[in-house]
Each structure stands twice: as C-alpha cells, then as structure tokens.
C-alpha cells in the first residue's frame, strides 16, 4: 500500500510525505489526491518527502515527474528528498520534459478554418484524381478493345465469374422479391380504380427502365465494388502494385481494365436475370389475386417495349464501368495500416452508389430529351 500525507508549515510551503509502494495500482488514487492538494494550495515550494517509498515503478515515477512539471509550470519550486538513488535514476532516465499542452489544445477558430480549407482541398484533389483516372481508364479501355489480344482474358473471365455467375442467385432472389412486393403494393392501390390488370404494366416498365438496372448495380457495387477495392488495397499495402510498376506492367492495364470489362460484361446479363425474376414475382401476385396466367402474360408482353428494355441495358453498361472503375480507384488509393483496406472498401461502395444514382439522373434527362 502507499499513502500520502500533507503538512503545511507556512503559507508558501507544502510538504507531501509519500510512503509505501508507488506502483500502477496505488498511484491512480494518489495522483488525483496530490494534484488536488497542490492545485488548492498553490505552494511556492513543494517538498516531497520520499524517504518512505519502498518501491517505485513507471507509474510512481510518472507521479513524481508530474508534480515536478506542474510546479515548474506554475513558477514554483520542488524538492524531492530522500528518494532512493535507483528511483532518482529512473526519474532522470524517463523524464520526457514538460509537454506543451497549450499548443495541442489550441483548437481555435484559426484551426477550424484551416480544417475547412484542408477538407475542401482534399475534396477537390479527389475530384481531380477521379477525372484523371477516368481519362486514363478510357484510353486504356479503348486500347484494350482495339487490341483485344493484349487483354488478360483469363483474369477477365475469372473476375466475370466471381462478379457475375456467382451473383446470379442473390440477383434473382432480390429481383423476385422486389417484383413481388412492388406488385403487391400496387395491387392494393390500383384496386381502388379497378385497374389491377395494369399492375403488370407498372412493374414491367419500372423494372425494365429503372429498378432492374439500379438494383443490379447496387448488388454489384456492394459485392464486387468493395471486393475490388479490398483486393487492390491489400495488393497496394503488400507493395504488389509497386512490384507491377517496377516490372513495367501498368497496374491500370493489368488490374483495372480486366475488372471493368468483366463488370461491363456481366451487368446486362445480371439485369436480365433481375428483370425476369421480378416479372415472375409480379405474375405470382397477379395470379394469386385471381387473374388467369395467360392474361398476365399477355399484359406483360404488351407492356414490355424493347426500347425500355434496351434503354435500361445501356444504362447498365455505364453503371458497370462506374462500379468497377471506382472500386479499383479506391483500392489503388489505399493508405497504410489495417484499417485502410476497410476504409477503401467502404468508400468504394458509397462513391459507387452515389455515382450510379447521379448517372441514372443524367440518363433520365437524356432519355426524356430523346423521347425514349
């Protein structure tokens, strides 16, 4: 055990008598006690009678150093008396000097303005990086398409399998459920007008034009966009990207182009699956509310225009490029440390989804102007 006694002989002098073991367990209590007493009395001379200290580890030394520094800071004096030589030696060895806390805690207006400035600068830098990356990627994509022999087809197909074939189940399930839910909700509303048969038109058009491409893009962004970012991020941390560069292999051509092409290839196919199963879900609801299967099929066939379908599929090509491109860019931007890969994956999904929605808005305007 350790204890601390106080003696105030006259106005300017406080004596602390410290006895016992000063270790991590006992120092915690003494620390606040001693700090309080010193702050209350503000002695000009603080005398620490440490002759009774039997043991002193890092925490004990920290307490003595803290008393020393706080006295020095307030312009007072300190005398540590009777401390065993080995503990005195530890004090000299460990003393980090006074830390200037005022500098660290100066989170004033100036530093907030600086933060805003830095944040804006980083944002603009990021935009610039993305634009230049899109430029670089476009050039290399065109080159890959004009010289298909140079493309790493084996890698591309493996990636296409992982992002496409392996995602068929989840895409079909989600498509089915969305078709089912959409049809069910619309039936309730359409019933008021006696127009339940037009639920097939509503579901078909929304799936073909908007929901199919968007849902599939969200699935691809969360499954594959994050995977691309994590994979490339880990490669960056392991210096594999640097190795590629020094071997004369361009990381964008070698890693990004196959992923983008794979994503662009699988997106329309996955969207078709999504649409198909969405229509099945819709059909099931309509049959369950009493329509004949032939009537439902006929209504869907009449509602489904090739223009809507292909309009949606064209969008998926752009979505695929955005998801894979952004996923790879975030991966290549990965910093250092274990959390950096996680951050890259998160940023890949978030930026991917934002980019998809913005692109979808642009498509809506363009299609409207073109009268599609």
């Amino acid at each position: 055990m350790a204890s601390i006694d106080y003696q105030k002989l006259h106005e300017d002098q406080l004596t602390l008598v410290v006895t016992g073991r000063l270790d991590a367990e006992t120092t915690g209590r003494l620390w606040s006690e001693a700090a309080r007493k010193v702050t209350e009395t503000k002695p000009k001379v603080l005398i620490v009678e440490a002759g009774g200290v039997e043991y002193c580890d890092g925490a004990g030394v920290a307490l003595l150093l803290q008393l020393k520094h706080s006295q020095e800071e307030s312009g007072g004096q300190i005398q540590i008396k009777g401390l065993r030589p080995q503990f005195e030696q530890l004090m000299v060895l460990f003393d980090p000097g006074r830390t200037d806390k005022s500098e660290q805690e100066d989170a004033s207006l100036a530093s907030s303005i600086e933060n805003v400035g830095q944040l804006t600068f980083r944002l603009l830098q990021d935009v610039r990086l993305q634009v230049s990356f899109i430029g670089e990627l476009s050039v290399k994509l065109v080159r890959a398409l004009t010289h298909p022999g140079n493309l790493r087809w084996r890698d591309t197909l493996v990636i296409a399998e992982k992002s496409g074939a392996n995602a068929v189940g989840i895409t079909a399930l989600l498509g089915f459920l969305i078709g089912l839910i959409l049809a069910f909700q619309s039936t309730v509303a359409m019933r008021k007008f006696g127009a339940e048969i037009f639920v097939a038109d509503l579901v078909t058009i929304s799936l073909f034009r908007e929901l199919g491409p968007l849902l599939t893009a969200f699935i691809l962004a969360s499954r594959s966009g994050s995977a691309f970012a994590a994979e490339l991020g880990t490669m960056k941390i392991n210096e594999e990207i640097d190795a590629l560069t020094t071997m004369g292999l361009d990381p964008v051509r070698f890693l990004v182009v196959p992923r983008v092409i794979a994503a662009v290839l699988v997106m329309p196919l996955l969207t078709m699956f999504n649409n198909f199963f969405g229509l099945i879900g819709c059909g099931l609801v309509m049959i369950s509310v009493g329509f004949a299967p032939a009537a439902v099929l006929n209504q869907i066939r009449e509602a489904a225009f090739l223009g809507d379908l292909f309009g949606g599929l064209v969008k998926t090509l752009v979505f695929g490029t955005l998801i894979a491109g952004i996923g790879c860019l975030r991966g290549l931007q990965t910093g250092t440390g274990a959390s950096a890969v996680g951050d890259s994956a998160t940023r890949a999904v978030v930026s991917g989804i934002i980019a998809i929605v913005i692109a979808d808005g642009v498509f809506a305007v363009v299609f409207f102007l073109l009268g599609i």
Partner: protein
Amino acid sequence: MDVDTEPIIRVDDLTVAYGDNVILEDVNFEVKPGEIFVILGGSGCGKSTLLKHMISLHEPAKGHIFIDGMDIVAAEGSERLEILRRIGVMYQQGALFGSMNLLDNICLVLEEFTDLSRDAMEMIALMKLNIVGLADAAHKMPSELSGGMKKRAAIARAMALDPKILFLDEPSAGLDPITSAQVDELILKLSENLTMTFVIVTHELPSIFTVADRVVMLDKNAKTIIATGKPDELRDKSDNPWVRQFFNRQADAETPES
C-alpha cells in the same frame, strides 16, 4: 544483478508441434533475472515458434514453461492475466495499432489494466516513449514512422506496464546497421537501468555479440537446443563445428538453411 537467484523463466521438457509435424523436442533451459538471453538458430529452426509458446500464444504438445514461478501453459483466467502483465512483447513488425497514435497505443493497455487518470496514463506513455527516444513522435501515427522507429515504439508499448520480462522478436531484422546498433544500445540501456530480463529471438550476429549475456542455439535437423553459453565461448570453443561456423559466418556450414 544476482545470477544465483531463482530463474525467472524455466522451460521444462518442451515439445512443440503443429499436428504431427514436430518442430522442437525436449527443450530445456532457464533464464535468470536481469539476463539478456538470446534464442538463435538458422531460418526455420523454430525460434519464433518457441517464443510464441513462451508468451502463451500457442499451446505446447508437451512440457511446461514457468514464468516468474507460474506455469504459463496451465494458467487460466486471472492467473494467466497476471503472468501476461509481467511480460511485454515486441513483435517482428512492431504490430502497433495503425489507427492510433503512439501515445494511444501505449495508453490502451494502461486503460485496460489500471485505474489511472488520463493525465497519468499520458505521462507514463510519454515517459516510455522518452526512454526509447520517441517523445517527440508521441502524436504521430505508426504509418508516419520509419522501420527503426516502429520497433522502438513497439518496445515502449511493450514496457507500458513495467514488465519484468521483455520478449523481442527479431529486433534488428530489416534495419540498417546504424539503426540496428541504436536498438541494441537501447536494449543495453533498459537492461542496465530497469533490471528487466530480455529474451531476444534473432540471428543477427553483431547484435548477439553486443547484447547477449547467454544464448541458446536451436537446430532445424536436431529439433532441439544444440548449444548453450556465452556467444564468445560458443564461437571459439564449441564442440559442435556447425555452431562455430555459424558464429564465424562461414558459408560452408554443413547444416542446410544456415
């Protein structure tokens, strides 16, 4: 330092295996308090594996390891925690938490094991960083540090709870000779001033000759200790020619992987 006192670490008949693959068999040695004890051997001989068993990361196939009189193999719950409080470990790559600055890396363990106030913890963390020469880098992130600084910061973190024993895994690996010498100096300084016991795994000969009080040498083929003693004695007087060759850095040593 009184070398006649009870050993602070005792390894008894230790057999280490991964499944059926036996790495080390019947390993016996003792480490005295205050000693700088080096485990060395060629690549793949089980040095780091032995260290991982000594710090209770892996369970041995057979045998016991006593740390400060307590069997770390059998210890569970609070007894195991008590042993872990008495040891500090520096991993080969530092293993600093990348999301925290150096001060927080050290404060983390203090937060978990003590009731100290934040001020007290920061003071202790700064002291530990000061002793390894990194007080100025307290607010830096591990990613901003060089390899040598990371190793020193890892030593500071390992010392957070004033352990009796510090285990260092390859403290000089991957460092330039000057930085490596600085790490060696730090080990000597800590050993001299804080009377800590060091168990160091390394195969860097200059470091061994600078810091080691005693070494044990492991061998991949023998799967056990093939030599124990002071480095100078082993270099000059060992009965085992391979040991002498190892210490003399002779490339024609017969044992593979040397």
